[in-house]
């Protein structure tokens, strides 16, 4: 086969596959996330993401809010002479720094373990994905310890619920709330959306949201990291002025 024929065959196959996706898209759904930009301001205490969609009559849905998969170095505690202190470092690879999952029913009832692992859905898939190295021998409990740490401030959570309600047009209305805990660091996050029917993945989609520091919070964190000396002087100056002012107010009140 000449290179010209190969290109022609490739174009034909590409057209057929795109037509197939378009046909699947006939069961189209619109997937809305609000808000798309979460602002971390002075009174921030976490946020609720509202996710809604109109979908065909499928069995199940899964939504995951996922952070980037970075290398993280953690302190590891151990007991030395009856005291708990940091005894080594644990390096964690391929772990999303945030993983918040909501599902319409138990994951085991949605798809096979192989399918869930392939798609990176659920706690057991994370167990297979995340790798650890340490300056000390590994105990085998690293994943559970890591999950404890991440769950303690809510950045790993697999207990969210998705509500699927039949709509008048024969489809379903999907609604879910994902809680973003206050400890979630600023950055860009993916929202992965999966629809299943009879154990098979039938649709998937992705959206992106961002968490951004704003106002005073942004000003102070920028100043603290970029102009540490100015930040230190500002902190001292404000404390001095505030202290003297409070003293003056109280002494005038007591008079």
């Amino acid at each position: 086969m000449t290179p010209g024929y190969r290109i022609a065959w490739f174009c034909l196959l590409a057209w057929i596959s795109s037509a197939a996706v378009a046909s699947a898209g006939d069961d189209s759904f619109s997937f809305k996330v609000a808000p798309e930009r979460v602002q971390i301001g002075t009174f921030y205490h976490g946020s609720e993401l509202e996710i809604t969609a109109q979908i065909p009559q499928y069995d199940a849905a899964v939504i995951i809010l996922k952070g980037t998969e970075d290398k993280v170095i953690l302190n590891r505690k151990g007991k030395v002479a009856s005291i708990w202190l940091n005894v080594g470092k644990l390096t964690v690879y391929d772990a999303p720094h945030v993983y918040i999952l909501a599902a319409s029913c138990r994951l085991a009832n949605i798809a096979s373990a192989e399918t869930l692992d392939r798609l990176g859905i659920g706690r057991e898939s994370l167990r297979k994905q995340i790798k650890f190295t340490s300056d000390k021998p590994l105990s085998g409990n690293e994943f559970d310890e890591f999950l404890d740490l991440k769950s303690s401030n809510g950045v790993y959570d697999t207990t969210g619920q998705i509500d699927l309600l039949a709509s008048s047009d024969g489809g379903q209305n999907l609604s879910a709330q994902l809680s973003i805990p206050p400890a979630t660091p600023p950055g860009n996050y993916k929202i992965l959306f999966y629809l299943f029917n009879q154990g098979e993945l039938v649709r998937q989609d992705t959206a992106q949201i961002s968490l951004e520091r704003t106002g005073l919070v942004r000003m102070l964190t920028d100043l603290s990291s970029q102009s540490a000396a100015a930040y230190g002087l500002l902190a001292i100056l404000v404390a001095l002025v505030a202290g003297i002012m409070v003293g003056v107010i109280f002494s005038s009140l007591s008079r």
Partner: protein
Amino acid sequence: MSYFYVYLPIAGASVHIFLLLGLGLIVGFLSGLFGVGGGFLLTPLLMMIGIPPTVAAASDANQIVAASSSGMFAHWRLGNVDLKMGVILVIGGIIGGTTGVQIIRVLKAAGNADFVTKVTYVIMLSIIGIYMLQESLRNLKPRPLHDSIAKRDSKSWFARCSESLPLATHFEKSGITISIFIPLILGVLVGILSAVMGVGGGFIMVPVMVYMLRMPMHVVVGTSLFQVLCTCINVTFMQAYYNHTVDFILALFLLVGSTAGAQIGAKISNRLKADHLKVILAVIVLLVMLKIALELLLPPGTLLSYQGES
């Protein structure tokens, strides 16, 4: 968004506003009631509500700048500050504070800064708590007069030791003559503790000035506040510059609560007996020490921690 929570940008935590104001109020109340700075109680309390220990200690030092400034200026106007003594203590405090910040920096990189902070707390709070409890219980018992006279007249090991040091200087306002190395070394020690524990050091400096340096009480309070203020200004700047651990918002909320609490505490303290107050404070100090000691001895909730946290 919730208007009852405030996001602490450096601590990276969202805390209920009334919890911060309440903590400040309680510590300020105790500080007004017992005449201590309160930093040694506030830092562990902040750790208990989930503020990373290094941020708690650095922000507490920032809060003490505010809390001690109004008192220091009031004493300054009354002429209660021994400037010569204060300056030597401050030089020592700056050397110690800067050293302490570097110690924290090295320990933070090694992953054990918070362990050292906690251990220092357990040691210092045990010493102070037990000493205060013994002292106040002894004072509550009636004592024969000749015992106290004999005790006052005898020279302590500290007095004998300080007389042997060179560069003896007369401190006019305090009415004492001692080697400048004594306040310098004390300043260094308090400076290190101030950086590691996030305290002003008044709870160490006041008894040292009264019992060891034999300075008059009215000069002790003003000079101690001068030293605490200058040491905490240095520690705040160093922590902000090197460790990026000063949470300015946290310090402000604590300050509002603590200044109000201090005024209430000072008013109530006039109606209570001093030794009864000391017993209560000693029990509080020992309870806080016990809580920190248990954190070191009992298995932690999670065996892993982020770098820079406990």
